[in-house]
């Protein structure tokens, strides 16, 4: 799967969802479609959720192979170090689609 990120050529920063200006140097960012492969850095299952949402919410912080990190929701139990695939959604959020355990590492 893929998602849109923005890249700052000056800071080499990669941010998703994409934004127009770099938060560090205010330079214009370049928008690019990148592969959604990455690894879970940390995660949580939220049991007490705000009005309008249904518990539990599973969410993970994913370090993308293409650079940068995204928070994404998941329908599957997460574990730190898992390989995942992230899809960018229209509302600017992200979803973890499938995953495999990291093997041998």
């Amino acid at each position, binding site marked *: 799967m893929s998602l849109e990120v923005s890249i700052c050529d000056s800071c080499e920063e990669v941010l998703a969802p994409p934004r127009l200006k770099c938060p560090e140097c205010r330079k214009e960012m370049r928008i690019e479609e990148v592969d959604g492969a990455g690894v879970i850095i*940390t995660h949580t299952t939220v049991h007490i959720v705000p009005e309008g949402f249904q518990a539990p919410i599973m969410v993970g912080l994913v370090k993308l192979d293409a650079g940068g990190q995204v928070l994404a929701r998941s329908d599957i139990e997460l574990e730190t170090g898992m390989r995942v695939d992230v899809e960018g959604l229209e509302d600017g959020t992200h979803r973890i689609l499938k995953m495999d355990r990291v093997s041998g590492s």
Partner: protein
Amino acid sequence: MPTGYLAGVGHTPFGRSELDLVALLEDAALLALEDSDVPKVDAIIVGSQTSDELAEVANLGTRLADILGLSGVASWRVENSSGSGSALLEAATLAVRSGAYSNVLAVGGEKMTDKPTPVTAKVLGRVLADTEIALGLTMPSLGAMVARMYMERYGLSRETLAMVPVKAHANGARNHLAHFQKPVDVDKVLSSPMVADPLRVFDCAPISDGAAAVVVTSRRTDVEIAGVGHGTDRIALADRRGDGLRATQLAAAIAYKEAGVTPAGVDFAELHDAFSILEIIDSEDVGLFPRGEGWKALEAGTTSRDGELPINVSGGLKSRGHPVGATGLAQVAEVVWQLRGQAEGRQLDDVHVGLTQNIGGFGSNNLVTIMRRV
């Protein structure tokens, strides 16, 4: 550089209050004015994270001047979410240092229990990034992810993490102004309901009403505001880089430089433990312990009331309570009482330098203040 001094502090009881926000602010302000020997303040700075929504009241600056019998005096509001309290002290200090004003009253408060808890939680969550709000995340959700990352990276166990609220409650039991004044044990923390795995109810600061105030003056008193530092980080957690909270690290570097002290010169600290894990991370961010070792100091009792470097002897946010707009000034009040030898029931021996660290948003807009007995 011209400096600023603390002439008086005030602190209402924290917890569920019958008073409305303006009455709480008034009480704290009157206590601070009474505690100081300043005949007249020439400016008022008021703070609240979200008075408009949670307390349905606005124009706090004018209201305070009016109700305090100070109509005519310059009065304005400062907002920096849960870091509003320290931002008030910063604004008052800068106002005095600049020479524009001689005596400034800074007062912060929050009335949080009027609305049902889900509404309060939603309003508080507005400080997060849009993408986080869209996912249904709240402050504790981000705290949980940060907690897991730290635990897995540095070997902190869930049981040791529970020692933060246990210590907080033990300290809060000695503070007559605290929201909770009852000790708890590790079992109680670990059997409380799960909020966001691995954080449970007892890992999270409560929803509280309350206000705190200080009078800052250009005239020498017994407590100097030696250093005030302020830093920010990117609003979205996923957009941040590095370990710990950069906003705290930046703020601490400025505060230490201004004060001319190093972390080794700090005798005690009041840190922003909105979630248990934050006290440990904060203690490393302000340089009191090396990265990854804050939990070892906690486990060894170094940060206990009778340890070498007491942290949150007031009870911290967890036990003292967390009326968001008041917290930073409540931390300052505790430091002033300790430095003056007035912390009844919990006085530390021989303390000269105290540090506060106050977080705005989820760690994105933080302040560090260093105060010194002179």
